[in-house]
């Protein structure tokens, strides 16, 4: 399809271990793509490569198209929530009344309007992650890369954050790295499994029902077992 965003990683290695060699895949525009795989296979590295954060590599897409949400929320402890979500504009010297208004609207949308003046240390893990999500959205880039963004919160909070993220990231092209097959089945349109060394990508599932899928969704249930098997195989070939 012409609307897909092609990603090509020619070569990426750490010391003498080759992570990727001539790796191709497509990101479906406006869809959420999940990347699963055993730990150590290079999921985060691939994401960092696409984000242009791997030193000495040429990023596959224009950096200005991308915003990035890391594993930890990376909120700055010396700024309150409002200043934290506006850090991008501030770092570029583009802070304006319009940004602030937009930030306040989004904070209200994620239920943080009362926490605007609070500092990160005064927030729960879920609240911090919501603030980080707002910061990512305020960058207003068409492509969003997320590296296990909900791995540090409890199961119920994660369930809620997934729904919130789906709502806020609507129409954006999202690449989500996760180790949780359930998270992938709940959120993704396309699910890839990364395995082997050098790693290769396999399209493990394409889902069509509305996201976020709940626990009883037929497609989610249909793919649950096969995806799990695919991950077990991926772990075996990667060892």
């Amino acid at each position, binding site marked *: 399809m012409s609307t897909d965003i092609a990603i090509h990683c020619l070569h990426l290695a750490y010391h003498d271990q080759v992570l990727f060699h001539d790796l191709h895949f497509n990101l479906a525009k406006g869809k959420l793509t999940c990347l699963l795989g055993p730990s150590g296979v290079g999921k985060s590295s691939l994401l960092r490569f696409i984000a242009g954060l791997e030193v000495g590599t040429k990023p596959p897409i224009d950096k200005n198209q991308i915003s990035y949400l890391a594993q930890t929320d990376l909120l700055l402890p010396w700024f309150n929530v409002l200043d934290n979500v506006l*850090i991008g504009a501030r770092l570029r010297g583009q802070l304006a009344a319009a940004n602030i208004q937009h930030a306040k609207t989004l904070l209200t949308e994620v239920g943080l309007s009362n926490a605007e003046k609070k500092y990160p240390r005064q927030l729960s893990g879920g609240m911090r992650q919501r603030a980080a999500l707002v910061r990512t959205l305020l960058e207003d880039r068409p492509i969003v890369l997320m590296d296990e963004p909900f791995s540090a919160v409890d199961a119920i909070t994660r369930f809620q954050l997934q729904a919130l993220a789906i709502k806020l990231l609507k129409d954006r092209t999202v690449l989500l790295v996760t180790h949780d097959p359930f998270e992938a089945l709940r959120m993704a349109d396309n699910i890839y499994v990364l395995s082997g060394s050098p790693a290769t990508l396999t399209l493990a599932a394409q889902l069509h029902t509305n996201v976020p899928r709940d626990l009883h969704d037929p497609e989610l249930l249909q793919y649950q077992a096969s995806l799990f098997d695919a991950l077990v195989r991926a772990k075996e070939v990667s060892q």
Partner: protein
Amino acid sequence: MKKTATFLFVVIGLILIWQAVILIFKLPDYILPTPAAVLHVGYARANLIASEALITITETLIGLILGVILGCIAALVMVFCRPLKLWLLPLLIISQAIPTFAIAPLLVIWFGYGMASKIATTIIMLFFPVTSAFYDGLRRTDQGWIDLANTMNAKKWRFFWYIRIPAALPSFASGLRVATAIAPIGAVVGEWVGASRGLGFLMLNANARMQIDLMFAGLFTLVIFSLGLYFIVDKTLRWAIPWQKV
């Protein structure tokens, strides 16, 4: 409240031990004066001690402020200008390797008998801990924040101002704590080598004239000032940098 009580308990305990040592070993006044004698001379000569203390306090504070400012500038220079770092780093280490006592006489010759030479010894003593702590803090910015700023197309100076400096402040604060603790030593060392005023001068003189009680009174004044200064600096840092892990 409990802390204050513990502190008082320790102080009273030490004074009692002090008195007990004198009684047990039958120590004469010129070896170890009694707490009462020290308190008495402290009270009787309060004006003298206060006016000398004022000199030492002034030297310490000016030395501390200038030393911290210079230390910060040196750290910034080392971060921004690698060629200069090659020159500055050996100089810094040398300033720490040379015993301040050894160069203090030279500083007196250069800067005179007045306050300037004492301020100079203070600066030399506390320059290094401030510079190395702040420099370390500036170099160890969390990689996650560097990546974040990178994807956000941050301007270099804005990244420095809004992220790298605040991230380095906890480290700077520990350098400043060390500097605060040693600043009075710097001033007193300067006074010992050559001075006509100050607590160090008073103590040296009292010692030479066997006025051990006056020497002790001067010493306690110095200790109380040092503790007070550290307490104020520490509290201020905790208040100003609440994100540091203490």
